[in-house]
């Protein structure tokens, strides 16, 4: 008896855990209901978790490197429903900073109830916002909020869309003997004339049977994996040895062309 009751409890526990994760048959959509959607950005290097500091990773071409800073802006999120309609989240800017886990899971508020199958977002700060008055540069767009970890170019007005810094034996040693590399990607296309535009937009369909079902009682999480390794090798191979310091839009084009393919939706949680 005792054994049976133990089995029963275990079974019941497993059922409850599994069902809370998947909710196979969510309740029908009630018009007017809203809830949050959480975009979880999970930064990795290939099949490894990204940890800042000492951990050594390898690029696709075999250069080893460590990461001290990894930041990027996400903006202009939109979500597509199974009926093909979309909902946009304009004027919301998120800065994912690996050093601060509070920034890893930005929340989209007041998402109408429905079944969502795809997310689209821009990597960077769109050109309209990049030329906007200071009054509109609040939150993560406030230049005065960054401190040492700047995400803005003062000399060439514009945001740094993505920043990766670290060390690598492939980088030349500085005066202090540190082999540092710095990739700063920016460039919104120019205020008066056409200049390099490193804004990229990605559309990520959710895996099969992984709809995000927003309901009054369900605030789904969309688990996005950001694979840093793709930054070094996707469309173009980027070698630290060739370009250890990238601080200008034109030099950063290969990185932008790579980061457009850096993201995948791994799964969704509907709870």
């Amino acid at each position, binding site marked *: 008896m005792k054994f049976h009751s133990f089995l029963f409890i275990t079974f019941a526990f497993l059922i409850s855990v599994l069902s809370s994760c998947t909710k196979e048959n969510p309740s029908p959509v009630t018009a007017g209901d809203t809830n949050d959607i959480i975009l979880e950005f999970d930064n990795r290097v290939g099949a490894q978790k990204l940890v800042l500091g000492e951990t050594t990773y390898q690029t696709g071409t075999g250069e080893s490197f460590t990461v001290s800073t990894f930041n990027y802006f996400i903006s202009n999120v939109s979500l597509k429903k199974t009926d093909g309609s979309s909902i946009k989240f304009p004027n919301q800017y998120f800065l994912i900073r690996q050093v601060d886990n509070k920034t890893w899971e930005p929340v989209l508020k007041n998402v109408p109830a429905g079944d969502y199958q795809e997310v689209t977002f821009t990597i960077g700060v769109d050109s309209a916002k990049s030329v906007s008055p200071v009054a509109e540069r609040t939150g993560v767009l406030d230049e*005065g909020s960054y401190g040492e970890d700047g995400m803005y170019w003062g000399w*060439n007005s514009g945001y740094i869309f993505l920043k990766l810094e670290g060390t690598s034996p492939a980088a030349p040693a500085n005066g202090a003997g540190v082999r540092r590399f710095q990739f700063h990607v920016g460039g919104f296309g120019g205020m008066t004339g056409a*200049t390099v535009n490193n804004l990229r937009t990605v559309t990520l369909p959710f895996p099969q049977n992984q709809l995000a079902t927003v309901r009054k009682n369900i605030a789904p999480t969309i688990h996005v994996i950001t694979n840093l390794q793709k930054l070094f090798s996707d469309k173009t191979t980027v070698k630290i040895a060739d370009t250890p310091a990238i601080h200008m839009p034109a030099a950063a084009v290969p990185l932008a062309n790579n980061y457009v393919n850096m993201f995948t939706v791994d799964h969704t949680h509907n709870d």
Partner: protein
Amino acid sequence: MWLLSVSLLLVWGCSSPNESNPEVSFTVPANFPEPVYPFERNPMTTAGVELGKALFNEPLLSRDNTFACAECHSQPYGFTHHGHDVSHGINNLMGTRNSLPLQNLAWESSFFWDGGVFDLDLVPIAPLTNEVELGENTKNVLDKLRATKKYPLLFKKAFGSEEITTERFLKAFSQFMLTLVSANSRYDQFIRNEGETLTADEQAGMKLFEQKCSSCHKGALFTDHSFRNNGLFIQGIKDVGRARVTELEKDKYTFRVPSLRNVAVTGPYMHDGRFYTLEAVLDHYAEGVQDTQNLDPLFRQNNIRGIALTSQERQQIVAFLKTLTDEEFLKNKRFAAE
């Protein structure tokens, strides 16, 4: 006399001035065009301008608390760095460019030698964060200001509460910089028929200037706000000018056409301060123009490179340029630190 004192008063709405902090009206000089700065976004007030002036003279803005903006932008020299070809900042680090005068900024829509900044409100961030200028970051500066007794009160007077934000900080800076209007040189008084006379040489120089210089140094502001390659010998760090920010071949070696107001006191000249006298500048245009990439077509007319100028004509142009010195502007106590 038809232009005499027809100052257009622009009083802007959407502000919340009060008796203790009256609005400052921005006066457009009679011989000037309409300004381009969007005043409606940042209404100028007495306390806002005062705060901006205090910040302009505040060493806390630098990493080691030794340097203020006013160091490289000194009023008696048209707000430039007197005697310095390129400016130096904290720890005696040297920059690569000559500090530009700060004047008539309400009429500019791009800033610095390469035009890399397109909004006056965003200008202070550049020198503040440049490692060889003030070498700081805005967050540190705001924190330092918050820790003082003085600044929370000045922010309250200017903006209604003690809160110190990036937006308020930058807007106060703009309010002060916008007041730096230079429009009362002997030339201005002459052109506005206010009783000033110019000598024969100065008048001859003015005519020559109109013929030979004013297609770029245009109108009342003495600039057409463009970026051009004026044929300087490419030397030193081989500064690519505007291409530094646009990364476009067509912009290589082009630099801002600077205003010539107060030019007699803002030397040395050119983006790298290579010419120490106005005579050297005129000699360059007459004899020294180099055929480099993107040389402006204006310097290549009728198969002649440069601008044909006899030595007498050069002297007369220099005499005219000296009439652009605005003593009232250079000595106005309103702009000076308390």
